[in-house]
């Protein structure tokens, strides 16, 4: 029986090596390609002939659009409209990664910190650069909340700077850890079913059914949280508190 950590193994499908670096087309890359192609194809097909009375696909695409548009409006305000495509793309990429991972034998690319850290660092760098472009050096006032007594400032400012710098770490570790722990838990309980035999093994199997339902909730919730936190970071850069 394969160990519970075996599912996170990255296997090169088409080995490629450029200048000593291993840039093979792996199963992780394959699932990312599948996620992008399916989501792109879905949105292109359902919005090709938009109707006043929408069909099932169009309703789904429109409600997803509205969901993210509402999130951007609530968290950033009307200034955030121009960043809607970015936020929507982040949501779709993370959601597709989490949801495709729920297919048996599929690979969850969001369960690798390399992927989530890449996403989080890209967001973090973008937000920081945006803040400097919009406000110049005035951006540093983000680290010094208004109305703080002078005596407390040496204490508050390092804390604020640290909590700003730790953002990409918590953002990426939260997503990666949730996905990894969830899939690990499913495999551990599936392992119990095998080792306990047919009679007793039914109990962990039923538990696993409930866990899979819970995992679907977590898959959606983590995509939602990742997106809403990106929104909040973006708002900090645009409005400075």
């Amino acid at each position, binding site marked *: 029986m394969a160990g519970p*950590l075996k599912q996170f193994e990255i296997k090169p499908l088409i080995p490629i090596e450029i200048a000593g670096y291993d840039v093979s087309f792996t199963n992780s890359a394959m699932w990312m390609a599948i996620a992008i192609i399916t989501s792109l194809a879905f949105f292109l097909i359902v919005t090709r002939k938009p109707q006043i009375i929408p069909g099932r696909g169009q309703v789904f695409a429109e409600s997803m659009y509205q969901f993210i548009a509402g999130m951007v409006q609530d968290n950033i305000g009307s200034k955030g409209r121009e960043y809607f495509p970015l936020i929507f793309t982040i949501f779709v990429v993370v959601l597709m990664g989490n949801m495709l991972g729920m297919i048996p034998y599929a690979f969850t690319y969001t369960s690798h910190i390399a992927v989530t850290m890449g996403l989080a660092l890209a967001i973090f760098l973008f937000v920081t650069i945006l803040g400097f472009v919009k406000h110049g050096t005035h951006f540093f006032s983000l680290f010094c909340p208004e109305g703080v007594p002078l005596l407390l400032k040496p204490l508050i400012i390092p804390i604020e700077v640290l909590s700003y710098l730790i953002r990409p770490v*918590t953002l990426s*570790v*939260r997503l990666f*850890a*949730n996905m*990894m*722990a969830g899939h*690990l838990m499913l495999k551990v309980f599936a392992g119990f079913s095998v080792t306990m035999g047919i009679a007793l093994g039914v109990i962990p199997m039923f538990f696993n059914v409930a866990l899979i339902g819970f995992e679907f909730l977590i898959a959606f*919730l*983590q995509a*939602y*949280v990742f997106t*809403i936190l990106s929104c909040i970071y973006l708002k900090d850069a645009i409005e400075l508190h």
Partner: protein
Amino acid sequence: MELEAAKLIAAAIALLPMFGVGIGLGMIFASYNEAVGRNPSAAEVLDKKFFLTFALTEALAIFALVVSLIILFG
């Protein structure tokens, strides 16, 4: 003490934050249910905040679990 035994004990100690996360999650659920019970029409607004705080709190427990797993397998 043998290394293996020390590893097992460390993995168990790393899971202690679950204690606090359990209390925190209980408080979130309790206050959410109480708020919706008092004002059912506010449920839609509270749902979003509830899920966000739930996921943020729950993530701490997952961090502890990952540390524990790294000690065990890493």
